């Protein structure tokens, strides 16, 4: 059995609610495909070893480092990226909270932080501060002291709780 190293794989994946059908190279990661093939550059490339979280997306509601997922593995899944959080020009509660608390400084880590926070609140709608620290520990920030990011998540949780 010879392996055709130039072969592509066809995947069907829903990205931010929109069904996409793509031909992808097997060795391209979900991060590569999101940024280069789909032009969704909100998800960022940094360490590429699953340490910094800048590439965090949700696959079927679960937060993952997209640099460690082959695009082919996402076949049949629903992927949510930072571009899928807002509805039109209406920011979601996390995005609005991040803006209010000044959580975004240079902003490069922020898409990953938002996705990790999104998954955190979905699993744990009333997180303690320690829960938030732990839930975001896979997302490095170098500009801020994490304080304003943590505050934003707690504020958003409070509002989501108040709304429901």
């Amino acid at each position: 059995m010879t392996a055709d190293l130039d072969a592509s794989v066809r995947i069907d994946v829903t990205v931010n609610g929109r069904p996409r059908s793509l031909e992808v190279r097997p060795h391209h990661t979900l991060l590569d495909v999101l940024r280069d093939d789909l032009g969704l550059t909100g998800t960022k490339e940094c360490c590429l070893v699953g340490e910094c979280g800048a590439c965090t997306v949700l696959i079927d509601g679960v937060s993952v480092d997209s640099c460690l997922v082959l695009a082919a593995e996402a076949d049949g899944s629903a992927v949510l990226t930072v571009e899928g959080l807002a509805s039109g020009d209406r920011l979601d509660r996390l995005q609005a909270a991040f803006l209010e608390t000044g959580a975004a400084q240079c902003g490069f880590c922020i898409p990953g932080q938002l996705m990790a926070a999104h998954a955190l609140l979905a699993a744990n709608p009333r997180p303690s501060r320690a829960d938030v620290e732990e839930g975001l520990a896979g997302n490095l920030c170098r500009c801020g002291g994490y304080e304003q990011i943590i505050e934003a998540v707690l504020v958003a949780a409070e509002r989501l709780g108040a709304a429901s």
Partner: protein
Amino acid sequence: MTEPDAGVLPGRVGTSPARGGGRARVTGRQAYVADIRLEDALHVKLVTLDCARARIVAVDASAALAVPGVRLVLGAADLPDPMPRFGPQFQDRPVLAVGETRYHGEPVAAVAAETRDAAEEAARLVRVTYEELPAVSTIAAALAPGAPLVQDPSMRPGDPLAASNVLREHRYGWGDVDGVTADVVVEGTYAFPMVTQFAIEPHGFLAAPDGDGIAVWSSIQHPNWLQRVIAGLLALPLSKVRVYAPDPGGGFGGKQHAKYEPLVAFIALRAGRPARLVLSLEETFQAVRRGAAEIRVRSGFRRDGSLVFRDVEANYLIGAYADIADRTVAKGTYTSCGPYRTPAARIVARSILSNTTPSTAFRGFGNPQQIWAVESNMDEAAHALGIDPVALRLRNLARPGEVFIPGDTPADGDWARTVGRAAELIGWDTPPAPGRGRGIAVGLKSGPTTGLSYSTVRLLADGSVVIHAGTSDMGQGARTIFAQIAAQELGAPLDWVTVVMGDTAVVPYDQQTSASRSSVLMGNAVLGACRDIQGRLRAMAARLEGVAEADVVVDRGEVRIGDRVLPIRDVLVRGLGRLGGEVIGVGEMRKEADPDHPLGGTAAFFEFNCTAVEVEVDRATGDIVVARHVTVSDVGTALNPSQVRGQDEGAAIMGLGHTLMEHYILDDGGRIRNLGAIDYRIPTSMDLPLRLESDVIEHGDGPGPYGSKGMSEGALLCVAPAVAAAVRDATGVVIRDLPLTPERVWRALNEVAVP
């Protein structure tokens, strides 16, 4: 379009409106350099060697060129001879290594291909024949007699140090250190490690032929500087070099000066197509770092704790090319006496070349290393003298207006108040909980010594505003504060103000974004442009109302004539009349060089911070938990308090990084072992102080708009000595080397030597 509500002006200076560019950052729309797509761009991949120093024997690109999609492989032989060189202090850095690689990661060649895959594959296939050469990667090795020279002596003709690895030696001082007598002398040698900026955005560069010139995109903090470099290397007039500088995803100094832009520019022109190079995180760690240092401090005191002399010998280990590193040594050690009244001082500082990553600017600019040494020494002095560490600082701190460095700017803040506030917040006068120790330290840094910033502001016909300001907004929030200034001065709602940055074809000259200068230098330029507009509006109002100009006051968004108050917008609309148009203002702030000054100029302002921490130390493991971290900075006026807080707290946590965990690990050959995020550790959200508090002292005593000073480096400066002092207080051990990893603390506690 909504009408602005003239009665309410949100976003005025001193408030914390949402960050300019914040919305783009939370929606993923902010375009960093790696997000920019150029039609037809070639992907570039660097070819490097896995050793610190090597003689390049041959570069065989044949296998690489055979990879489908590869368009060119560039080596030194394909560039002009002599090799073009660049650098902010010395033109020493070659566009590509020629003859010899001098640090682990210096590129030997570059591949340009249609796809990233092809570029990566081809880069692997470039066969470099090389001979590894002895390399120096420590101060001792670099200074040893007969040490291999990092730079060829012919690079520094006529320089008596050319046959050594000492690039420069700086000497400062006053009084007679050897002639004064002190009651107590405290001496120690302190070491600061090699650390890297680790901005979450790795460096990225694009270049494309642009008519008869070139366009370059870079995450560069100094777009105009880069423009000059590229123009010089390509023999183009400045007007034919367009630099686009997207907001960097963090800079911290590592993106101040050109790195691979020249290489990418050559490739783009050679190929006749755009070229794109985005570094991996590992390549970024190989490209930029902070200078490491070994600093001996000997300080003399009278019994009552007043300083008698300070004698400092500082050796900084810089990299294979100077970049701006020697300037960090010169400037960083110049303030080795700290913010203290020091009757006699002698400072000798050396920048020492090594076969390592070229060190460059990094938040603090040579000061954190010196402050680690001097403030640790102060803490040791407090113990030797039996004087409380806060009292020792207060006894010696320069008072506002006092000259503490002869020939330089006097103390420009109430620093005693800053120290007092930090002490108050941490509860210095009440003992810490059992098992905890406390430490305190202060940090001083000179602001910019020269500067030039221009800004143009355009007040458009409907009262909205466009600001052109060449500052790089890399997270510190420059864009926001400039908008706040204009909103305040011109009476526009904040969301009616647009700030244009990062395009040398459109935005007037700004010297650089560094030294925490932009609030002051560019802020004043923006303010000046607004005042220029106000002057024109005064003339306009006088004409419209038939009064003398002297009877018109234009201030903070209003036009006042006697008792009448008119919104600026009213005067503007009537004054521009049927032709419409706009009012253009130009502002400039300039701080001239002083050729007689050792640093080329006095400090425009000082950054001053006091940091106090409380720690718990696990004696069995060496783990340090920072229970409380208090940081107080003297900022003049906080133009945007939320941004000030974000910067100060970020600086504090970054300081904890080099204090507790960050360091390059080199092997004996000078190769970096811990490239990448797995083994180079920085603080995560789980590594925070249990309680972090920041505060600011605002006396409106800065030279910037509304009495502001520059800030955002201060809170990093003295974290390390504060923590080490707290560790000593908790355990009794004095540790003089960073980082204070659990293992290092354990060794000190158990007096176990390094294996």
